[in-house]
């Protein structure tokens, strides 16, 4: 077991308890999809396990080290983050930095990597996501899909053990979703451990091997993704999957078909 999260609880003042004891275990190479309706606490859970939010209670075991998620020390947070990368819904690329600098910045100023090495790592990560031809572009000159691919490269470059994705395609125009999912799919194929909060059912079904289904801050079902989609154990899960199916969520996004490449007006960075 690479990462084990036990009984995470979190309340926000007015919203009451947002996480009511969520647990999850992740093996190396797992792709865990966290599913559930809006407001079910999926994103809060992901933010808690990277300490962007401080949980009220909970335990984390990461590579054999045990941490109390409420009282964890700054130094331990840094140690955990060193092994993880986080991909945000709205990318959060550094707006004042070029694509290359976005990926290098954390390597140089976070990990203390020499510039030359950092550049090498950044270039190879950007190549990996197909963004090596836009090194000198600024985020505002890129499409959402391109920004998200750079954000993935930024996480990838530090060679994390696990990558967290927080609804990585939710802010994207429909025609840009495919390019991001394809990158994620290829990472999964390479054995990258991933936890993905998503609404992309087809992606969850075809890429993830584990599903955590949440509603109202509770885990309704944890299952292999095969069982979850074909043989859901709980009534609530069945209802959820049916509601998605009737909305056409699964059928309308067949990822097996080739995704159209976005035709974007390229903005000259020397403008």
């Amino acid at each position, binding site marked *: 077991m690479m990462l084990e999260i036990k009984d995470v609880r979190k309340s926000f003042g007015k919203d009451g308890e947002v996480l009511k004891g969520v647990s999850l275990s992740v093996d190396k190479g797992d792709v865990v999809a966290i599913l559930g309706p809006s407001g079910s606490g999926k994103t809060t859970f992901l933010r808690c396990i990277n300490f962007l939010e401080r949980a009220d209670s909970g335990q984390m075991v990461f590579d054999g080290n045990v941490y109390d998620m409420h009282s964890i020390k700054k130094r331990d947070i840094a140690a955990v983050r060193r092994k993880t990368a*986080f991909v945000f819904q709205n990318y*959060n690329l*550094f707006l004042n930095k070029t694509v290359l600098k976005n990926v290098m*910045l*954390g390597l140089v100023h976070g990990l203390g990597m020499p510039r030359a090495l950092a550049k090498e790592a950044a270039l190879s990560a950007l190549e990996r996501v197909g963004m090596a031809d836009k090194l000198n572009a*600024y985020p505002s000159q890129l499409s959402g899909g391109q920004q998200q691919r750079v954000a993935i490269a930024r996480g990838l470059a530090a060679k994390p053990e696990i990558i967290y994705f927080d609804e990585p395609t939710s802010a994207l125009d429909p025609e840009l979703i495919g390019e991001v999912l394809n990158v994620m799919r290829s990472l999964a194929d390479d054995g990258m451990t991933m936890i993905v909060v998503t609404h992309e059912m087809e992606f969850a079904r075809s890429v993830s091997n584990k599903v955590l289904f949440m509603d109202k801050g509770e885990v309704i079902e944890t299952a292999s993704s095969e069982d979850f989609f074909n043989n859901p154990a709980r009534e609530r899960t069945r209802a959820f999957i049916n509601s998605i199916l009737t909305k056409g969520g699964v059928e309308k996004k067949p990822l097996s078909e080739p995704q159209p490449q976005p035709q974007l007006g390229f903005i000259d960075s020397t403008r």
Partner: protein
Amino acid sequence: MTARQLAIVKDALPFLLKAFVNVTLPLTALSFLLALLISVLVAMIQYAKVPVLKDLCRVYIWIIRGTPLMVQLYLVFYGLPDVGIVLDPFPTGVLVFGLNEGAYMAEAMRGALESVPSGQLEAGYCVNMSYTSTMWHVILPQALRTVFPSFANSLISMVKGTSIVSAITVVDMFKEALDIIGRHYEVLPLYIEVALIYLVFCSLLTLLQRLGEKLLGAYGGAR
């Protein structure tokens, strides 16, 4: 304009320019530098919510913004000697103008810092950067870009604002003009002359502001 007026205006020009270059300019430049330092520091202390210090910053801004500049100038120059603090006129000017404009600029800077999306800091954390490092490489540069027009505004305003410094015996360009008027009793032409010199210089600064914005806008500007 009569020939006499023209001659006075012409003779006055070198004296006015000399006072402008020797006094008004350095006074403005030093005061602005001080204000710049104060404002960035005060804004960052509040942004980082440093206990105690952030409250002191609020008090500073409250007092400065709540009292007239002229009163502050008099208080420091004519008032403080009563408690044994005697400062020369020029340093007094730098100190008071710097402290005064610094309070206004600090508020603009705080606004600029707060306008940087919170995700930028989180992204820094997630790539293993510290608060300080993210602040330095990401948040501060973006905030400075946002605040640039406002700071340019302050600078331009200060160039002219320093003209009240004659009240504490500093002979700046305006005081020089007053003295010349006192000798020749030619009021209107000399005031217009002084006004034009200020106008020309401030126009130059406006051009520089535009140039600066263009340079800083290389990453597509603040969004």
